[in-house]
């Protein structure tokens, strides 16, 4: 089971944080600090796996964002790399050539996509098309409500 998933920039600013286990605020902040320090200190062509306390940390860098997740002992690190890659593909499909700014300005959509892909630390849907369809349908539901609001759209 994945314990957490973090996205952060090269400057250490967090862009997305998903926790699959209940933790206090201070612990979360500590984990974020530790992860950013550890991962940003890694040299370019080194292995993507780290060991931290009793967790395996898997990270991958995509352009200016680091995707970092914490796994338990029995989890498969290579598969976690695939999970991260799949998430990036989903984001890319949704936003069309996704970049960090898309995730900054539309962070809630990134969360919605993540929630369609992972749940409780596990992969819930392995088909890219299904996830894309679900997100589309949810967005459609949302837009119809917008008609009631006289606010500018996101």
């Amino acid at each position, binding site marked *: 089971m994945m314990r957490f998933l973090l996205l952060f920039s090269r400057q250490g600013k967090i862009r997305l944080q998903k926790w699959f286990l209940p933790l206090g605020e201070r612990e979360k902040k500590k984990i974020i600090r530790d992860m950013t320090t550890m991962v940003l200190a890694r040299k370019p062509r080194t292995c993507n796996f780290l060991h931290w306390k009793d967790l395996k940390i898997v990270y991958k860098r995509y352009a200016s964002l680091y995707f970092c997740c914490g796994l338990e002992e029995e989890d498969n690190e*290579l598969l976690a790399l695939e999970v991260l890659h799949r998430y990036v593909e989903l984001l890319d499909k949704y936003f069309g050539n996704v970049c960090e700014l898309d995730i900054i300005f539309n962070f809630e959509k990134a969360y919605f996509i993540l929630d369609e892909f992972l*749940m*409780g630390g596990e992969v819930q849907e392995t088909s890219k098309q299904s996830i894309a369809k679900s997100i589309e349908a949810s967005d459609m539901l949302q837009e119809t409500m917008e008609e009631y609001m006289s606010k500018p759209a996101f």
Partner: protein
Amino acid sequence: MAPSVCLQEMIRVIRSARTQGEERGVIQRECAAIRAQFRQADSGGRSHNLAKLLYVHMLGYPAHFGQMECVRMIASPRYSEKRIGYLGAMMLLDEKQDASLLITNSIKNDLSHSSQYIQSLALCTLACMGSAEMCRDLAPEIERLLKASNSYIKKKAALCAVHIVRKIPELGELFTPSAHSLLSDKNHGQSFLLSVRSPTLCLHVFHAVPELVQIMKGLVTSGYSPEHNVAGISDPFLQVRVLRLLRILGRNNDEASDAMNDLLAQVATNTDSSKTAGSAVLYETVLTIMDIKSESGLRVLAVNILGRFLLNNDRNIRYISMTSLQKIVQTDHTAVQRHRGTIVDCLKDQDASVKRRALELSLALVSAANIRSMMKELLRFLSTCPPELRSHATSGIFNAAERYAPSQRWHIDTILHVLITAGGDVRDETVPNLIQLISVASELHCYTVHKLYRALISDISQQSLVQVACWCIGEYGDLLLKGDCDEIEPMQVTEDDVLDVLETILQSHMSSPTSRGFALTAIMKLSTRITNNIDRIRSVVSIYGSCIDVELQQRAVEYNALFKKYDHMRAAVLERMPIMDKNSPGHANGDPSGEITKDLIQTTPIQGLLIQEPGELFCYSVGFNSVTCLCVFSAPNVTVYEKGGVNLKLQCDNQTETAITVTFTASNSTQSDITSFTLQAAVPKSVQLQMKAPSGDVIPAQGRGTVTQTILLNNPNKASLKMRVRLSYTSQGTLCQDMVQIDSFPSPAWN
């Protein structure tokens, strides 16, 4: 009131703030506006406000005032508000917050909503932050949804059930009947498999092994399914998951393991591992093979796969193969030994993670057969090792050397090499261990002291090396000065050279206080082993009598006393030490330049016994300070010696099961004072002895006063306690000496 800015505008403004202070200001303004908006009635922009708050929260600012708003939004009928509300709940609420209980009812309602997307929101939130109470309340609902016909909801409900079972294992039984039906679901999203953590569920599901095998076979041999395909592997996520389940089911179960043998062999041979997805599946297969009761052919196949992984160019794959090999190195030692060469090569890799794995695996692979070659590699690694791995490497090397050393000389050489390369990272007990090793290897004393001397003159910064070298030079300085040694080229060393080196260490700011203590003691010991420069030693010792460091000062003062008052004893005191046993009492202390008692049975001369001097204390025992401790005892007072007017009483006090405090009280019933009263004591080998300072050395006449001396004994092996006490005193101008053997102590502690 300032109109609320829409989300992206706010993000833009925050990002354009040039300093932290500016950003804080913007955020404070925004939060104030958001708070005001929350207090208003339904303003239509509520979802935007909450979204803004969530952004602010992600930046790290406090956002707890949004919790109640989340609760309200979740209860709203509008989908966009629900969506943001649930997101807010997942981010801001956790099971420790009280507000989380308030959303239980909303979730319950939403679970029965007509729209599947609203149901999915509720399920997702429950799986993310559901506390134990919430799970208990909503478990029946989830169970109902598991039986629903909608596969989209079914899969989400399944994962939610997994979360519930994790939180409350007893509820696993509730979901067992549905679990089996999920397995036969055609849909690829069979998520419930992972909940098989509780043993009861295992029992129900293990008869499903054949079905799982079928599913897996289908995946491996099926045609191309573009939806689920990743780099040529069809649905690796599902494959890995099935393999994991097979692993759990086959773990201690012969029947199940047999059923999956063929499948595992098939997957292992047919999966293409050129991309990560394929390697992930192969990796999981290997782990499964290793964990279940597989036949030996399959195990060999698995180890070979790991070996192939080791040669892969991709560092990730090498890393995980070493991790897996580490797990099986105990059980399949010979199989892993075959790959020793590659593993040792990985020690030279650039990557610190790979190096760490390689180091651990190499240390596990060291055996009597390959110790020499492995040690060469390990020592080479030590010189280029990253600092965080050094202490691990040194302790591993020492353990390996101790277990498999082919000869003493090799052992000493290895330890010396490590000290020279990484002396700063070795553990504290290395110094006494090495000293004990050196003292045991008596034929190598000459060789050792020469080597150490040479190492010392080139570098005095490695403290452990300095300490060992000083000790050796002090002990075997005569061998060093003699010059000739068969195993090493001769080097002419003069007394001045040796004293120069020791003095340099004493004065260097790189030396730790312990090292300086070693150096001072070494200089002192040399006073009996050299002939010409005794005055130089005397002057050094007297200079340090006023050193700021209390330990050095004390030693110097004591050594001074040795020169002045007790010169007759100096040769005896500074003689070469007897060989220490590995577990002898002296070994337990950190400073072996204090050799403590030896055995009682041999008639050893005074040198072998612990010497206790009154007055300016000269004491070999460590941690000694001139504080007399008079304990209050409850045990009876026994007279152990009575002669010539001198009466010696013994009192025991048990502090713990193995520690005992013995107090001797000496009194004098003669007409004149007794002066220079000293007590020496010896105990059996397994007992540790520590003498405290006596209260004085003059016993006033006619019982007007007494001299007391306390001895602390530590008897970890609970051996039978005996003590031999030697008294020495001057009475009416004559020097008297006597010995008393105490065979039984007036306390029931030792049995």
